């Protein structure tokens, strides 16, 4: 007999003070939804077959019934999976929306019905959306492995590394951000759900504004500006890591000589002879041995060359 005949009676959504309304928190039907024309049957009915899923859901944020924005305060399981009456009538064979098997963008549309605030507001049209990545590519509602954010992998780094291996590999280089050490995460700089900034950077509206949200001392404006510092930090630095000092994209003085071919010392060949003579234009930290304030200077008379 169809399971609809089971004892479990359709349960009304949990009351949480204010009555739920058709708003964030209730699935907006997707075109071609498997649940078209079905009615809601309630969580208790779902649990008759999907005990494990109901249980795994019960300790997540989705199950917080006092928050009127959650599925628990609305149509519970059917907030995400759509109304289940046809599914029940078909003895569990089809007629239900499963984000794991839906088209990626349909799955994302399901999640962003509720997850539409600050953190997720820029999902549609963002980099990940444009490449057909969906919420369930990284997250799992019923079998997450992470302590935070219900990721499919144990850590955020492992999650991102699935696609962004070269960037993660750079964390093993001599000069790197403290991600390996657990003091930062990919999401410290990036919002994988999309942002107003380029490169899905979380802060600011430019690469520099993102970097200087922590490195505020380099924000300026300075009395004397150095062009690449105002233009883009990644002109000189690789934020994911480098084997060069201070995450530089190339070793100094060669890096500086990519722009400075002036007469006199900037265009000197700093070969092994210069090195053995311990010229301080190649030894140690090279150009910044003297041009110490290379990000910009406020010195009233020596700032032009970033020496003070």
């Amino acid at each position: 007999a169809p399971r609809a005949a089971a004892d479990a009676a359709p349960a009304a959504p949990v009351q949480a003070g204010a009555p739920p309304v058709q708003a964030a928190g209730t699935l907006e039907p997707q075109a071609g939804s498997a649940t078209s024309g079905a009615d809601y049957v309630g969580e208790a009915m779902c649990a008759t077959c999907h005990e494990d899923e109901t249980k795994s859901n019960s300790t997540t944020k989705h199950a917080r019934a006092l928050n009127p924005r959650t599925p628990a305060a609305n149509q519970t399981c059917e907030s995400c999976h759509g109304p289940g009456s046809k599914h029940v009538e078909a003895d569990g064979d089809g007629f239900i929306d499963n984000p794991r098997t839906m088209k990626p963008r349909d799955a994302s549309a399901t999640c962003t019905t509720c997850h539409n605030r600050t953190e997720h507001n820029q999902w549609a049209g963002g980099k990940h959306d444009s490449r057909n990545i969906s919420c369930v590519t990284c997250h799992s509602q019923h079998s997450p492995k992470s302590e935070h954010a219900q990721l499919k992998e144990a850590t955020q780094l492992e999650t991102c590394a699935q696609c962004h291996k070269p960037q993660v590999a750079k964390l093993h280089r001599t000069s790197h951000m403290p991600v390996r050490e657990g003091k930062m995460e990919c999401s410290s700089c990036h919002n994988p759900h999309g942002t107003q900034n380029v490169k899905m950077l979380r802060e600011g509206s430019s690469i520099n504004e993102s970097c200087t949200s922590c490195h505020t001392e380099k924000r300026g404006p300075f009395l004397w500006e150095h062009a690449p510092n105002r233009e883009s930090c990644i002109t000189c630095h690789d934020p994911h890591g480098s084997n060069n000092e201070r995450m530089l994209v190339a070793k100094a003085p060669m890096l500086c000589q990519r722009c400075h071919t002036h007469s006199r010392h900037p265009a000197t060949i700093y070969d092994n002879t210069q090195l053995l003579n311990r010229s301080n234009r190649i030894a140690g930290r090279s150009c910044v041995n003297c041009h110490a304030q290379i990000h910009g200077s406020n010195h009233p008379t020596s700032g032009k060359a970033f020496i003070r």
Partner: protein
Amino acid sequence: QQPPPPPSPPPAGATPQVDLGVVRQQGRVDAGFRASSVAGDQARFNRFQDLREGPFLSGIRAERETKRWFFLGEAHNVGYRDQRFMGAAESIGRFKVRFEWDQIPLFISGDTRSLQQDLGNGVLGVDDGIQQAIQARTLTLADAMASAVPFDMRSRRHVAAFDMTYMAARDVDLRLRVKSTGRAGRHLQSFALANSPGGFTQELGIPIDDRTTDVRMGVEWANARGLLSAGIDASWFTNHIPTVQFDNPQRFTDISAGASKGLAVMWPSNSLVSLVAAGAYKLPARTRATANISIGRATQNEPLAAPTSNTALVAPTLMRGTAEAAADVVSMVYGLNSRPAERLWLNARYRYYDYANKTQHYEATRVIGDWTVAGGTAENEPLSVRRHTLDLDSSFSASRFAVLGAGYTREAAARSFRIFEDTTEDIFRVTADSTGNAFVTARLKYEIADRKGSGFDGHLLEEVSEQPDMRHFDVANRRRTRATGSVTVTPVAWINLSGSIADGRDDYADTGFGLRDNRNRSYGIGVDLMPMDTVMMGLSYLREKYTANQYSRTSNPGAQFLDPNRDWWIDSTDRVETVVASLDLLRMFPNTDIRLAYDVSDGDATYVYGLRPTQTVFTGAASLQQLPRLSNRLTGGRADVQYFLRQDVAVGVVYRFEDYAVRDFALDADTVTPLAAGTSTIYTGYMYRPYTAHTAWLRLTYLW
């Protein structure tokens, strides 16, 4: 499909029909003893962490959730320099608060020494007797260095952050975030003294003491149709040591060609305050429009320091007393995303960014360091940049999981004080992606971009004696091609095979001098296996290669400046291989979890000079001597064995191995020691040194 009937509201005064019992109450704590042995550069090993030997209390996480409340507390490495504490509470459906205290160490070197003593308030001083003796030539600098005092070159960030979100109504949130980051310690910088810029440099442990305070507050309304938010983002950076004065060990008295003291101006206090607003609205045909606007002002008005600390120089008069630096920053992003048909996805985004530098004109008589008045004046160049970026993307669903995409971006930028007043870049891209398929995930992208500059201003090159054919690569004409691809195949549920490849090239065809070519190539392969629920293993290999070519000319003003026989170039190559392997055996053996991991990052780099056959740079017996090869290899291994005595109590041992091998010609011991290399540089002893570290944790884990 019928919309769900709105449930009846509960009678006034009725108790909500909610079970308010405990949903979850769990936690864990790790405690025990950590043993550590580091041979070599301890500072680099502990650069951002503190794994010193001793008892430890870490991994603490306690959470309790009822239907009405949620509490979470965390603590890590308690009592050590990288300790972190976090607490969060949420009244479900009403508000949530979170507080975090995090300390991030930056250990640069533990082997540094200096003659300069920190006298407080940004003053570093050398013993007067040493200065006098060296000046009188009764003591050599090299001998004086014997009395250099060891010190740790380290600093630490102390980050305190408080976040609060108050759900004022079902659709309305009020948000507040306050973050205060203090930074104190010593930072590595070097400054030059004596009679020419390259003549005499000394590395210093610059004292730093600064604080950044960020405040972000706003209100946000959102429902299924749309979103509106407005707020303020403010950030203040305050440097408590705005200048650092340091002694010249070689001079006790000032002369016009050499100062007894140097004065460096450190990071100026500054602020950035922005009003921000965002909106989104859902339109028919699965279309969504978004807008983000930010209008802000960056200011910096620090008092200007004295023109020089050298009393023997006639100090020029300053044009004004404070920096009077400011910039108006306006950013707008408008987006329109639509899925008008089942298989079609369209996206348009316009981005406007304007950094309008309003710093007042400033002109100064140049003083080079504190050793000479150079003559002539220098004018500031308050750089501004304005960018208009239009992204147009589309994709077509070829099948349930696969999409084919095409996109175009045009970025037009206008700048001041750059060699090109305007640049325009056209970017075309095609993509093919298959995601969500249980058997194959594939991502392919090809991109071609063309950037052109206009309004070339050769005067800017001329005034700094730059080669007229020099083009700064960040604005130069550029042809860029990039191809990336990755495929993951899952033939059966327990096997994942993956491969990736990337090839990118930047050609600066119109560049005579400067960076002319930049190329990157990489490929990687990997396998992940889970033959049974208790066994997981993974192995991946990635090889990357980066090459570049840059062109220059060694010349003094005059005939040399235009002599092609003085041209030279560098072909640089950077190769890195990365291997990551892991094996997890979770309960394969009774009550035992075993996790093993190994990784190695092995890189080498070369910078090879080239000269014309007719070159005149090297004459006589002198000849070009190529630089040595650079190499970096970081090898790490970790074994974590945990045996559960009971369901909630486990004992375990973690062993971690890390070996760092490095050859860096500019920063190795042969180059930067002795501390005084002649009279040209006094190094503190900061260098690239290898280390081998063994760390073991004997731990007791309690879970509840």
